[in-house]
C-alpha cells in the first residue's frame, strides 16, 4: 500500500469512529434537549398519530407500552426469579455468571455499575471476587497486614453515615483509611441499578442473608436514561437485561456515556445457537418445557412465554457486536457459552 492510500484508510477509520461517537453523543444531546423541552419523541409521535411499534416477545405493541409491560412481567416473577433460573437452566446460569466474572476479572478499586442487576447475582460475585483479590494481594505483598481492606469500614468511622446519600457522592467519595502512601487507589464500589423495585427488594433480602448489604448501593433507574454522571464508572455490566429494553441503542449509548475512558462494557445475554441440531433441541426445550415450569413453580405461564420469545427476538451475536461498535466501543468481542445459548459481549471505551 502506498503512503497516500494508507493515510486515506486511516482517515476513513477515524471518521467512521468519530461518526459512531458523534451519533451517540448527538443522541444524548438530542434526548436531553427533548427532556428540557418537556416533549419526548413518544409524545410527538402520539400527536402525529404514528406511534412506532416494537416487539414484546412475538407480540407487537407500541413502544410506549413496552416498558410498562416488561415492568409488570418482572414484578410478577420477582419472588420466584432465582428458583426459576435454577430450574430452567438446571443451575447452568451460575456457571455462566461465574465465567462472566472471570472475563471481567476486576481489580480492587474498580467501580462497577450493574444495570438490570435486580437480584444481585453479578454484584455479589463482584464483591466476593474483589475480596478474594485483596486477600491474594495481602498475602503477596510484604507489610500487607498494615493495610486496611477498603471494603471493610472501621466501626467508629462508619457509625455516623451508613447510607450513601446519592449515587454521585458514592461514586466520587474516597475513603482514605490507608495513609501509608503506597498508592491513592480508589475503593471498589458496586451499584445495582434496576427499573423494577420488586426485583431490587428481592436482591436486598439476598444481600442481607449473605451479609453483603453494606457493600452495595441499590438504585431504581431506567437503563435508557441512567441517573449517573458522565465518566463515572469503570465497568458497566448488564446480565440478561438488555433483551428486555425498548431501545437497545439508547442503552448502549448510555453505557458509553457513564463509562470512564478505558472503561469496559460487558454484557451477558441469551443469544442464537448456530448448530442446527442443538438449536432444535434448544427450541423444543424453550417452548415446550419452560412455560410449563413457569406455570408449575411460579404460577405464571405468560411471563415465561415472554421470556423465551424475547430471546428469539434479540439480535444474534454478530449483529449485537455491530450495535456495540456503533455506540462507539472498540475491541468488541464476544464469547459463546454453552454453544451460543448465552454469549458474553465485551467492548472498551477507548
Amino acid at each position: 500500500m502506498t503512503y497516500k492510500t494508507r493515510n486515506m484508510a486511516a482517515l476513513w477509520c477515524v471518521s467512521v469512529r468519530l461518526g459512531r461517537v458523534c451519533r451517540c453523543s448527538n443522541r444524548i444531546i438530542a434526548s436531553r434537549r427533548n427532556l428540557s423541552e418537556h416533549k419526548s419523541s413518544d409524545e410527538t409521535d402520539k400527536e402525529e398519530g404514528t406511534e412506532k411499534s416494537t416487539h414484546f416477545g412475538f407480540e407487537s405493541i407500541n413502544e410506549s407500552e413496552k416498558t410498562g409491560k416488561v415492568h409488570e412481567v418482572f414484578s410478577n416473577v420477582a419472588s420466584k426469579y432465582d428458583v426459576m433460573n435454577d430450574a430452567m437452566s438446571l443451575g447452568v446460569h451460575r456457571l455462566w455468571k461465574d465465567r462472566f466474572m472471570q472475563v471481567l476479572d476486576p481489580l480492587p478499586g474498580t467501580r462497577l455499575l450493574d444495570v438490570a442487576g435486580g437480584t444481585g447475582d453479578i454484584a455479589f460475585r463482584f464483591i466476593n471476587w474483589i475480596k478474594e483479590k485483596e486477600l491474594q494481594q495481602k498475602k503477596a505483598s510484604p507489610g500487607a497486614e498494615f493495610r486496611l481492606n477498603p471494603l471493610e469500614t472501621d466501626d467508629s468511622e462508619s457509625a455516623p453515615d451508613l447510607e450513601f446519600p446519592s449515587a454521585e457522592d458514592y461514586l466520587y467519595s474516597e475513603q482514605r483509611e490507608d495513609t501509608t502512601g503506597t498508592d491513592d487507589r480508589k475503593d471498589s464500589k458496586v451499584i445495582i441499578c434496576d427499573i423494577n423495585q420488586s426485583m431490587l427488594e428481592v436482591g436486598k433480602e439476598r444481600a442481607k442473608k449473605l451479609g453483603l448489604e453494606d457493600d452495595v448501593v441499590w438504585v431504581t433507574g431506567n437503563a435508557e436514561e441512567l441517573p449517573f454522571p458522565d465518566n463515572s464508572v469503570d465497568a458497566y455490566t448488564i446480565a440478561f437485561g438488555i433483551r428486555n429494553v425498548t431501545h437497545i441503542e439508547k442503552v448502549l449509548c448510555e453505557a458509553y456515556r457513564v463509562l470512564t475512558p478505558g472503561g469496559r462494557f460487558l454484557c451477558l445475554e441469551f443469544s442464537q445457537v448456530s448448530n442446527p441440531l442443538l438449536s432444535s433441541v434448544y427450541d423444543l426445550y424453550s417452548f415446550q418445557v419452560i412455560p410449563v415450569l413457569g406455570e408449575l413453580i411460579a404460577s405464571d405461564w405468560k411471563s415465561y412465554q415472554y421470556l423465551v420469545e424475547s430471546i428469539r427476538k434479540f439480535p444474534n451475536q454478530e449483529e449485537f457486536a455491530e450495535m456495540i461498535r456503533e455506540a462507539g466501543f472498540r475491541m468488541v468481542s464476544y464469547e459463546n457459552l454453552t454453544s451460543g445459548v448465552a454469549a458474553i459481549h465485551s467492548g472498551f471505551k477507548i
Partner: protein
Amino acid sequence: MAAHSRVFLPFRFAILKTPQILGVHTRFIPPQAENCSRISYNHGDRGTSNGEEWTPPLYREHQPTSLFQKALLTVGSAAVAITNPHRHDMIAVLGETTGYYALIRIRDQMKADPVGQQILSERPRINTRTIDLEELRALPEGTFGKEYVNWLDRNDVTPDSRAPVKFVDDEELAYVIRRYREIHDLFHTLLGMPTNMLGECTVKMFEAVHTGLPMCAMGAVFGPIRLSSKQRWKLRNYYFPWAVKAGYSAKCLMNVYLERRFHEPLEELKADLNIPSPPHIPKSTDNNNTRLNRR
C-alpha cells in the same frame, strides 16, 4: 393457513400440522422465528410456540398447549400438589389437563337434563359479585345459604379464590370445569366437611365417584399420604365408604341450580338430592384406635 390442513413449506420452515385430538406431537420448531410474524397476534395470545400448531385462544385466559406440554403439566402439577397442598392452582391445572373425557361426559349429562341445559346456556357464576353474602347471612339458621356463609366464615375462605381455567381446549368444557370448581364449596356445605386435608379427601372421593374426573380420583387416592395414620383410619372406615355411597346416590349436582336454592332448609335439600348425612364417629374410637383394634 387453515388449522387442520397439512401444509408443507420449504424444508427449513416446514410446519407439520395435525389435529390436536389425535395427540400427535407436531415436529420441531423451524430455526427462524420470523415466519411466525405472518400470523397476526391479538393481545395476550401467542399459541404454543413459533412452529407448533397454533390454535387461537378460545376464551379469555385460554393457553393452547400441545400434548407433550399437557403431559408435563399433569406430572408436574401432581408432584407439586402432593408436596405442597396449599397450591390449589396446581390441583386445578391437574383437573384441566386430565379431565377432557370426563368433562365431555358431564356436559352430555347436563345437556340431557332441562336444568342442566339452562345452566349451560345461562352460564351462571358463583363469586362475591353474583352472590350477595350479606343476604345469605340474613337467612334463618338451618337454611342452605346460611350454612354456606357459616362454613365460609368458619373456614376463612371466599368464593373468589378460584384459579381461571387455562388448559381446556374447548370453550364449553372450560365453562363446565369452571362450574364444577365454583360449586366445590357448595359440595363441602352439603356434605358438612371442613377444608382440612381430611375433609378435602372425603369431598374428593365423593366428587371422583359423582363426576368421574380423574383429578378427583387422584386426590382421593394420594391425598391421604399427607394424613396421620389415625386420620387415615377414620377415612378408610367411616368417611370413604360414606362418600362413595353419597356419590352414587346423589342426583347429578351439576344439573342443580344450587344458587337458587339457598333459602331451602339444608336437611330437606339433602333429602331431595339424596345426600346422606356424614357418619358419626364414636368418641371412644380415639382410645380404641390401637393396632390391635384396627382392621
